[in-house]
């Protein structure tokens, strides 16, 4: 399958000598939701900005929808919608005019029906005649998404789309992104909320200091790098971990009432059965137990601090 986004040996060095991207190679396929994660200053926005034509690349090849972003820039850009990180809007314009402007700018004839659908999908229809300056931050964010969708792009970049928005709007956006995917739109999102990537992404890319350090299917990533934790709430306090359990990675909580067993999530759960058998043999009773899988956030933190 031909990728919607293809980046090969991409480098970017700014005039002051700062190398923002180092030999980036990345392919993103039609219809997938790809989350690009990385700490501040890792190069996420630079990468997106180069693909969208806002920042010049130093060298390397970039294609969008199969078109080179320099040689066939019109075709490449027509296929892309971008929601940037900052709330950059034309304050004095009405919502309707701002969204219609974007559609025209991207070379599409006026289509009031489509604009109406987009505004209704984003709960902006009632505000269509309002000036953007009169809208709340969350509403302005919706306007930016509406502008990006106005020309029916097949690839949508969402750069920190839910930064500073409330929980309800975040959920709405997740719903909208899923809907877009259902319609075949490829979505690339950067986010600080790892929960967001965990909730939505099909694949995860992690960028650190301008280098892609990992691209992996989300489910595989979580099972490969994730940890599981079993917590046993004891009936009676223990002073130390019994010697019979020292073969297993077991810790005792400070209050002595919890045994914590951490194990690789890929591992078969033989260790859990062995642990429970040993506890039974030792006559150590527990009143409750719970297991927890490590979140993408914990995996991410582990990766970027390696």
């Amino acid at each position, binding site marked *: 399958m031909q990728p919607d986004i293809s980046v090969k040996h991409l480098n970017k060095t700014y005039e002051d000598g700062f190398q923002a991207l180092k030999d980036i190679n990345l392919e993103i396929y039609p219809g997938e939701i790809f989350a690009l994660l990385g700490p501040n200053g890792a190069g996420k926005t630079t990468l997106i900005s180069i693909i969208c034509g*806002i*920042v010049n690349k130093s060298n390397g090849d970039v294609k969008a929808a199969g078109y080179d972003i320099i040689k066939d820039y019109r075709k490449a850009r027509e296929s892309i919608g971008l929601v940037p990180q900052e709330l*950059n809007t034309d304050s*004095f*314009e009405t919502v309707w005019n701002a969204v219609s*402007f974007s*559609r025209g*700018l991207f*070379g599409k*004839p006026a289509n009031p029906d489509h604009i109406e659908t987009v505004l209704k999908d984003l709960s902006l229809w009632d505000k269509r005649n309002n000036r953007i300056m009169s809208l709340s931050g969350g509403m302005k964010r919706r306007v930016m998404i509406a502008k990006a969708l106005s020309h029916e792009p097949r690839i949508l970049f969402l750069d920190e789309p839910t930064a500073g928005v409330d929980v309800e709007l975040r959920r709405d956006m997740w719903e909208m992104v899923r809907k877009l995917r259902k319609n075949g739109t490829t979505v690339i999102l950067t986010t600080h909320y790892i929960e967001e990537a965990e909730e939505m992404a099909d694949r995860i890319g992690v960028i650190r200091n301008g280098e892609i350090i990992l691209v992996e299917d989300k489910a595989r990533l979580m099972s490969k790098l994730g940890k599981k934790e079993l917590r046993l709430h004891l009936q009676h306090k223990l002073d130390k971990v019994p010697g019979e359990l020292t073969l297993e990675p077991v810790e005792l909580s400070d209050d002595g009432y919890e045994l914590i067993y951490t194990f690789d999530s890929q591992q078969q759960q033989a260790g859990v059965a062995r642990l429970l058998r040993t506890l039974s043999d030792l006559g150590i009773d527990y009143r409750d137990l719970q297991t927890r899988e490590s979140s993408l956030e914990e995996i991410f933190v582990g990766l970027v601090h390696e």
Partner: protein
Amino acid sequence: MNLYGVKAIYNFEMARMKRTLMQSVLSPVISTCLYFVVFGSAIGSRMGDIGGIDYAAYIIPGLVMLSLLMQSISNASFGIYMPKFSGTIYEVLSAPVSYFEIVLGYVGAATTKAVILGLIILLTARLFVDYSVMHPFWMLSFLILTALTFSLFGFIIGIWADGFEKLQIVPMMIVTPLVFLGGTFYSIDMLPEVWQTISLFNPVVYLISGFRWAFYGVSDVHVGISVGMTLVFLSLCMTAVWWIFKTGYRLRS
């Protein structure tokens, strides 16, 4: 060619004019009318003719040119500076529009606004001063060519400026003095010889002279030289704009 894109930018800019009629139209018309009243009717009545033309009528082309230059520069510079300032420039840079189309949209709108304003001022001047236009085609040609040239110049200023102060410096500190010293209120023949020579280095002399010729058939320099100098300045501005987009100067890092 992305005509929808050009149209979107053009209409967006023209809509800004409609939103700000007081600032964009009324204010320059009133301030130019004050010149007509003060220098034309009040002081002008005590001045003699210049080259056989009544003084009040003589200054009209120069005053129209003053407004035309200021408005062309301010419309175009503000038009491109505001998206840079507000951050909305990302949309234009990421859109499938060529450099030429971007310039066509912004500069086209700024030129249209300046020409409309120039014509309104000319019509308003008729209320105060009796004047005639000997060569209407050339009058309109000079009007459009000058508005286009200085809109391009304003576009360059808007890209160069990184603050509102810089946006004002060139029109106020350079263009206004050049217009006042470029023969708006006098013929450069009236100056001592050395100042006549110095004046020939002022590009605005050629614009006003050519424009005045279109009205009354008299000029400080030959009309052919006026047209030539305007085209030279237009070419310089086009070269600068081409370089800006080629290098991404202050637009793309």
